[in-house]
């Protein structure tokens, strides 16, 4: 179960990343953020975001047309 949820559905690049960064910045290390998005580019983008920032992608899946990511704040 994630600690916080960010609804980024309907938003296009780069808004899901910018909002996720802002949400993670307000969380403590080790806490998990759930992100819901409809931007098909967000799959690759959140993977790249995590690799670059050191935050950890815990899981991601798809429910209908909604992508769901769980990212743990590491840095």
């Amino acid at each position, binding site marked *: 179960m994630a600690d916080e949820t960010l609804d980024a559905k309907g938003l296009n690049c780069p*808004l899901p990343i*910018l909002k996720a960064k802002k949400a993670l910045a307000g969380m403590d290390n080790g806490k998990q953020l759930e992100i819901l998005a409809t931007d098909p580019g967000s799959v690759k983008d959140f993977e790249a975001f995590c690799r670059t920032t050191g935050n950890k992608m815990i899981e991601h899946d798809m429910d209908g047309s909604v992508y769901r990511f769980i990212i743990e704040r590491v840095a």
Partner: protein
Amino acid sequence: MAEADLPNGKSMTIIVTKGTLDWAYPPFILATTAAAMDVNVTMFFTFYGLSLLKKKLDLTVNPLGNTAMEMPMMGGHMKMPNIIGMLPGMTGMATSMMKDMIKKKGVASIEDLREAAQLSDVNLIACQMTMDLFEYKNTDMLDGIEYAGAATYMEKALTSDINLYI
């Protein structure tokens, strides 16, 4: 945020030379995304790009000479030949079509991206020479930006990992 605070220690500069609505997107998208990925970002606004730092933005898309531009229309895509693009009112029409699409597709406005850039400590530098050349006043421009010249840009660019010219 000081560079030392950023875990990956990377930095990027972008020279922004164009001030139309369409050309404003690439620099602001890259700058805000890089800042979100802990990159220290500097944007240097010169010539027509300088107008993107004005307090009040009035950005347009000009179809004239923009021959690769296609607008989605009635299930297809419409190109705009120069002979049509030069007609009075076409810039206004292209601009309002683009703004409609931006809103409908959940794309951020330039105003929003610019604010996000400021909130994430992107360094915004206005070219002082262009300020003088085009007779802009500091009071026309956003608060909290820097005014400097080519040497300031070069110093930053020489130590950056990525330098772009847009």
